[in-house]
């Protein structure tokens, strides 16, 4: 699957559903990844793979390591031990002379281009208007022509329902609108993987639905791989191919949303779900 095939298509375009795409080749691999903060081990020798095109939701109590996984993938954190591969390439390591050494910035940046992230706090650039927030990276990272980048930004703004706001600054938008711009910004880089880190947690309740609708639309109309940390269990049930239950830095249970939400096997999963549902 090429990266180019992963961008959201227009609503009339023919698309492949995630289920039909069947979850192709392995796209993400965590191999014995350990991450510690001081003496606290957040991830403990974690093994974990995600196939291309799958929508995977990570659930679990606070501090169980879910967000750490996304931040490791986005290279906002470095693993203390273990390796991470994206699309068959090491993310934070590279092979030199048959040995695995910490990756240089150039290598990491190349591999990282396959990944996009939407943050809890949106993190739009407040000094740029909406349109430039979206075109900045395609122009300066992918080397896209400015007009082409703007054209694509308009398509994406249409997808997230914000075409009329392209000339505004982020602070002139509501939280929900800002988050939708952030989604468009991430998609503009045509990532193979979209990381969603509690993207509705900072929103007023009435704005949550709009953001989730956009994500549902993307999940159902594109073949982009999604890795999602959320407390919105209905959303997780709706879009996920797989749900992984985390506790204390380990995956304690995984399976289809039907299985995890209706017949959880692990006691900790049952406790967690009864607390959040």
């Amino acid at each position, binding site marked *: 699957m090429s990266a180019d095939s992963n961008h959201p298509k227009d609503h009339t375009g023919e698309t492949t559903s995630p289920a039909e795409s069947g979850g192709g080749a392995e796209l993400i691999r965590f191999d014995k990844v350990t991450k510690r903060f001081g003496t606290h081990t957040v991830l403990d020798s974690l093994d974990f793979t995600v196939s291309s095109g799958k929508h995977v939701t990570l659930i679990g109590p606070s501090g169980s390591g879910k967000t750490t996984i996304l931040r490791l993938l*986005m290279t906002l954190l470095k693993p203390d031990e273990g390796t991470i591969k994206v699309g068959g390439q090491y993310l934070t390591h590279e092979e030199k002379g048959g040995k695995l050494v910490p990756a240089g910035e150039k290598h990491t940046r190349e591999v990282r281009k396959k990944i*996009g992230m939407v943050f809890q706090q949106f993190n739009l*650039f407040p000094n*740029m208007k909406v349109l430039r927030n979206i075109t*900045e990276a395609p122009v300066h*990272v992918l080397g896209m022509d400015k007009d082409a980048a703007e054209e694509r930004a308009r398509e994406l703004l249409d997808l997230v329902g914000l075409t009329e706001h392209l000339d505004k600054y982020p602070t002139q938008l509501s939280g929900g609108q800002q988050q939708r711009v952030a989604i468009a910004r*991430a998609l503009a880089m045509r990532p193979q993987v979209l990381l969603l880190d509690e993207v509705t947690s900072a929103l007023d309740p009435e704005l949550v639905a709009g953001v989730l609708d956009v994500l549902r639309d993307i999940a159902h109309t594109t073949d982009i791989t999604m890795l999602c940390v959320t407390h919105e269990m209905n959303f997780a049930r709706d879009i996920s191919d797989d749900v992984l239950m985390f506790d204390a830095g380990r995956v304690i249970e995984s399976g289809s949303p039907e299985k995890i939400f209706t017949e959880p096997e692990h006691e900790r999963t049952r406790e967690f779900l009864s607390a959040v549902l």
Partner: protein
Amino acid sequence: MNNWSWSYVGEIMPDILKGLWITVQATIYGSLVSFALGLVWALALRAPSRWVTWPVSVFVEFIRNTPLLVQLFFLFFVLPGWGLTFAPLTTGVIGLGLHYSTYTSEVYRAGIEGVPPGQWEAATALSLPARRTWIAVILPQAFRRVVPALGNYVIAMFKDTPLLAGITVADMLFQANSISATTFDYLEPITVVGILFVVISYPTSLLLRALERRLVR
């Protein structure tokens, strides 16, 4: 005690205003030097290598902890002995700019650190190169935060320009002093100089406060 003479004020004004123009030039160019150098120090102090941060840090602390007048004398009287001679005003601009750059570097540091970590994270997530992250994301946001503080240093520098009289720059105080040395009448020249400083500093500080309110919104 002398009596105030308006006609004497009228006579000396052209020379004082000539001095004011020199004072304003020294402040403007000194500010520009301090803004540019301060940014260089602030960025150098964030360099990953200690071979950069350590010497810069020592230099900045040294300049910040020695008096401006001593630095001006060094530049004006010592450097020519080493073959480096500048005109008095140029020396003054270098001295003011260098001295104040050690303060503006702190302002920039605070401004840069005030940019939320999420901005760096978003830049990383978009794979923006470091240079682009600085130019397009971090510095524009930091500048917005530092404008009021930089403005305060411009006013402070403006009020420090009389020190340049010590290295023969014909600023306002130098002019007033020259006039007084001839007429033996200090009241009007020195008072006029003081008033001109207030007339320029105070509205500027009001303007800065307004700007600050606008930027903080």
